[in-house]
C-alpha cells in the first residue's frame, strides 16, 4: 500500500523587494513587488510504501525540510500533487494530523512551561488517545528511551537529548501510521543516538510504521534505512537502495601507500577517470580507485613508479565518500 505519493512537487519562495516603513508594508499587501523566486524544491516525484524506512539526505539548503513541511501540510506547494495516507496534506491538515507524527529536531513540539508528562497528557486529550494505548505507548517509550528520570521536569529544563526523546514519544502517542523525522539525532551523544535508533527500528518492526527521515548523520542511514533519496538544489538525484548506491557509485576503494620518503610530486599525474590521488601527506599518499576497472596490485604498481613503497593498506568504500562525491557533483544526476 502506498503511504506517500508525490508527483512533480514544487515549492518556490518569493524573494521580496524590501519595501520599508509602514506604508511600504501595507502597499505590499495589495501589490506584489517580487524581485523573483527561489525554487527550493524543483518538481520531485516518489512513492513510499507502507512500512518503509526512507532516508532523505542532501547538503544544507537542499530542500529536505521544505519537502517535509509540504508533506505535513505546513506549507502549501507552488505546484504539483501529493497524497499522504490517502489525503492531500495541505487540504486535510486536521484529519491528516491524526495519522502522522512529526519531529523537528531543531524545534520542540512540546509546551515549554509544562512538565513532560503534562505535555504528553495534553496531547493524549488533543488526539483522543484511548487510556490503554496511552499507557502502552508511554511504557514502551519509558522502557526504551529511559524517560522515567525526567518525566516530571519542565520541558524548558530538559537537555537536548532528553527533549528529543520526549518529542519522539509525543509524536508517537497516537500511533501514527507515518512518522516524519527532520534531523532527530542532531546534537545527540552516541548513547542517545543509539537509543533513538533502536527505538525506531523496534517501532518499524512492531507497528509497520512508515518513516521518512532526514539527517546529516550517515550512521543513522546505515542503521535504519534500506532506501535512501538524495536531494540537492531541489532535485532528487538518487532514489534507491543503500547497497545499490554503494555498489554502483561507491565502487571507490582507497589505497593508502607509505613511501620510504616523500614521493615524487608528479604522482598526482596518476589521477584520471577511474583513479584519484586524494592527498599526499609527507610520505603517505591516499589514492582512490574504481573497484570495477582497476585492481589493488595494479594501482600499487603504478604508484611504485614515483617512490620506494614501504607499506600499504586498503580501505573498502564507505557511504560517506559516495555522498560526498555526489554532493560535489561528481556523480551524474538522474540516476
Amino acid at each position, binding site marked *: 500500500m502506498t503511504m506517500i505519493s508525490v508527483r512533480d512537487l514544487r515549492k518556490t519562495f518569493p524573494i521580496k523587494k524590501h519595501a520599508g516603513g509602514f506604508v511600504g*508594508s501595507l502597499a505590499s499587501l495589495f501589490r506584489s513587488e517580487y524581485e523573483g523566486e527561489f525554487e527550493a524544491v524543483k518538481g520531485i516525484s516518489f512513492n513510499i510504501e507502507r512500512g518503509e524506512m526512507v532516508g532523505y539526505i542532501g547538503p544544507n539548503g537542499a530542500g529536505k525540510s521544505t519537502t517535509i513541511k509540504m508533506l505535513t501540510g505546513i506549507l502549501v506547494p507552488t505546484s504539483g500533487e501529493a497524497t499522504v495516507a490517502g489525503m492531500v496534506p495541505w487540504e486535510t491538515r486536521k484529519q491528516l494530523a491524526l495519522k502522522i507524527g512529526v519531529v523537528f529536531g531543531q524545534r520542540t513540539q512540546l509546551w515549554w512551561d509544562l512538565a513532560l508528562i503534562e505535555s504528553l497528557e495534553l496531547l493524549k486529550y488533543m488526539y483522543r488517545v484511548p487510556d490503554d494505548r496511552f499507557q502502552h505507548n508511554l511504557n514502551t517509550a519509558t522502557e526504551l528511551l529511559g524517560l522515567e528520570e525526567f518525566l516530571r521536569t519542565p520541558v524548558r529544563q530538559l537537555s537536548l537529548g532528553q527533549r528529543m526523546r520526549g518529542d519522539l514519544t509525543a509524536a508517537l502517542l497516537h500511533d501514527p501510521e507515518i512518522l516524519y523525522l527532520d534531523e532527530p539525532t542532531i546534537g545527540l551523544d552516541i548513547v542517545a543516538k543509539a537509543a533513538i535508533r533502536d527505538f525506531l527500528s523496534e517501532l518499524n518492526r512492531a507497528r509497520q510504521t512508515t518513516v521518512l527521515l532526514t539527517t546529516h548523520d550517515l550512521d543513522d542511514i546505515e542503521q535504519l534505512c534500506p532506501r535512501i533519496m538524495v536531494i540537492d538544489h531541489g532535485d532528487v538525484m538518487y532514489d534507491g537502495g543503500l547497497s545499490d548506491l554503494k555498489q554502483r557509485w561507491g565502487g571507490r576503494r582507497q589505497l593508502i601507500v607509505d613511501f620510504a620518503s616523500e614521493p615524487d610530486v608528479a604522482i598526482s599525474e596518476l589521477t584520471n577517470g577511474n583513479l584519484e590521488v586524494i592527498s599526499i601527506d609527507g610520505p603517505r599518499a591516499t589514492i582512490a580507485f574504481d573497484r570495477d576497472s582497476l585492481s589493488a596490485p595494479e594501482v600499487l604498481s603504478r604508484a611504485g613508479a614515483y617512490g620506494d613503497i614501504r607499506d600499504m593498506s586498503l580501505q573498502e568504500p564507505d557511504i560517506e565518500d559516495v555522498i560526498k562525491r555526489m554532493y560535489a557533483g561528481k556523480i551524474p544526476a538522474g540516476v
Partner: protein
Amino acid sequence: MAYRSSFLLQIFANFLINTAEVLALFAMFYQFDSMGGWTLGEVALLHGMSMIAFSLGDMLTIGMDYVAPQIRSGEFDRVLTRPLSSWMNAVTSEINLRHLGQLIQGFLVLTFAFTQVNIDWSVTKVLMLIGAILTGVALFMALFTVEAIFSFWTVNGVEAINAFTYGGSDLAQFPMHVFGRTLRVLFIWIIPVAFVTYYPALYLLDKPDPLGMPGWFVLLGPVITAVFCGVVAWGWNQGIRHYRSTGS
C-alpha cells in the same frame, strides 16, 4: 502563591487603567448635561455593554497576540500539525485572564447605568441585552483575529490594525449619532460595532433612532456580524495558505 498574587495584581492594574476611562466619562458629564441628547446613565449603559463584550472577546482570543511572533520564529509550524482547526489551536495556545479587571469594571458600570435609567424590562429586552453582548464578543474576537491575519503577510505595521479594534470599542461607548457620516457607515455596515451597543440600547430605552432606521434594524446586527466573521474566517484561511515557515 507568588503566581497567584501577581495574577491578582495584573487584574487590579487592568481595573485601574479602565477606571481612568470611566472617570473621563464622569468628567465629561460634569461639564455637559447630555451628549447628543443622552444622559449620563444612558451613555454608561453603552460603556458597560462595550466593556463587557470587549474584555470577553479579548480574553477569548488572547492567543492571537502570539500569532505574529510565532509566524516570525516559525513556531507556527506546530499549530499546523495538530488535529484541531488552526484557528482553534492558535487561540488556545495561550490563556491570560488579566482582562478580568475590565470585565468587572464593565459589570459595575452597567449596574450603575441600570440605577440611573428607567428600563421597562421584558423577556425580549433581557434577550436583546444578552444577544447584543454575544454579538459583541463574536465581533471583537473577529477583530482580534484580523490583527493576526495581517501578520501572515507583513511583519510590521500590524499595530495599525489595532486602531480599528480599539477604535471600534471606544466608539461603541458613545451614541452613534454624534459621529460623522463616514464613521457611522464604517461602524454600522463594515465593522458592525453599532449593533453591539447603540441599536440594542435604543431598543432597551424605547428610543426612536435619530438616524431614522426602523425598529427591526437592530436584528440585522447578528447577520452583519456573521458576514464579518465569515470574511475574517476566509482571510484566516488565506493567511494559512500563505504561511511560509522559516528556513531553519
